């Protein structure tokens, strides 16, 4: 009699355990996404970059098949590219560093990741974050960068190129606003 009791108890325990494991297994299947989503989950809304680019859009000139360079060459030092001369300061003299490292080869209005995925200028953080990983992590936690709109809700986050010049990202010296002083007359 007792043996039967113990057996049933054991059976019940086994069934419960198997159910639990099966459940976790199912959940695990649900949780793992089939593919890595192109748009990562970010806590704040990212301020869009494309509406701010009004002048000197790449596609104003680079619009036809022959207007794209197929081979690596230094950028033409003409007046159209006057402001785009340095790239990254340390990459200035690197012959392998050129437009197509960041811009899609046949569409300069798109950026290209190492994974060959084409992204818009609004997602510049994904491109910059390929090399600047720790900074990207800080940026996601709002330690690096700037969030505006409010501390409670309506948070809007600036992306990399809101503050950094995309073609010369190192911050430059600026002239400060004069110190407030008592005016001479009083």
């Amino acid at each position, binding site marked *: 009699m007792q043996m039967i009791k113990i057996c049933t108890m054991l059976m019940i325990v086994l069934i419960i355990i198997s159910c639990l494991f099966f459940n976790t297994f199912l959940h695990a299947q649900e949780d793992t996404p089939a593919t890595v989503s192109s748009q990562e989950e970010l806590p704040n809304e990212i301020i869009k970059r494309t509406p701010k680019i009004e002048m000197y859009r790449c596609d104003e000139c680079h619009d036809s098949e022959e207007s794209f360079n197929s081979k690596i060459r230094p950028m033409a030092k003409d007046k159209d590219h006057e402001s785009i001369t340095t790239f990254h300061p340390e990459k200035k003299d690197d012959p392998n560093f050129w437009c197509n490292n960041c811009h899609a080869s046949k569409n300069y209005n798109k950026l290209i990741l190492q994974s060959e995925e084409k992204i818009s200028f609004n997602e510049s953080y994904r491109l910059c974050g390929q090399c600047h990983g720790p900074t990207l992590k800080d940026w996601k936690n709002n330690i*690096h960068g700037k969030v505006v709109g*409010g501390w409670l809700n309506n948070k809007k986050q600036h992306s990399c190129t809101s503050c950094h010049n995309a073609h010369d990202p190192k911050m430059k*010296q600026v*002239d400060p606003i004069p110190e*407030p002083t008592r005016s001479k007359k009083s």
Partner: protein
Amino acid sequence: MTTDRSKRNKLFLEKKLEEKIERRTFLKGLATGLGLALFSPEKTANALSFDEFWQKHYKELTPEDKKRIFERIEKQTLERHHTEVKISDHRPMDGVEFVYCLNLSKCNGNRKCVEACQKENNTDRSFSYIKVLEMENGGFNLEKGTTHYLGPVPKEGKFYLPVQCNQCDNPPCVKACPVAATWKEKDGIVVIDYDWCIGCRYCQAACPYEARHFNFRTPEIPENEINPDQGYLSNRIRPRGVVEKCTFCLHRTRVGKLPACLEACPTGARKFGNILDPESDVAKIIKNERVFVLKEELNTLPRFYYFFS
């Protein structure tokens, strides 16, 4: 000669003292004087009104009192500065305690915050609540910092340390005030009732961060730059003879907005939020970064944290 004159003076005084002022005459004089002082119409724009003279401490005001007072201040501002303003009185939110974090690695000393603070808080243009100190790299001696630096910034071998009210949890200024015109609110902000302040400047002397400023003269604000969104305890236009300081822009922050200095900062060095929310930016910074406060040894428990990142 001299003895003659002294004798004459003595006689005159004795004569005067013998003349008795009658009680009735004295009372009449007193009543007339008081009446003139209190009930006469305002001669100058800056005269103290009857209502203002008898106004109670902020904490004793009823909602009706507040409504009346705010209307009076709005009227006075219109008369004196020819600007329509709205006086608000936002109370602390529940479950919110404000904390400020500042990334000293990012601050480049451009003084955009200083300018924004002046405009937001309607201060006299001769000073600001924020002082940006230029400091030598490798040291943290506040005495060696200077605010009188000229551009271009940031300079080699220097770092920039903006100092403003630390909203201490153990505020020496509040303890120093003899009339309780300054106190700490529930969300951590130390405020001043400008109508209750007697201008003794004890708080200014007590503050180890030199965050408080005394108005020796009536603040001069360009009329086209007056900020019409004014809080009774924060940025309403102060009279002469009272102390003022940074209030974390409570008229903005208590409705969920960010302080003006943060929004003006082009470097993103300034971070603001609710420390009681573990998901907030400031909570993450305090958890993950090496934060520190100024003059920790004084046990003032500041709410203004600095870090290098």
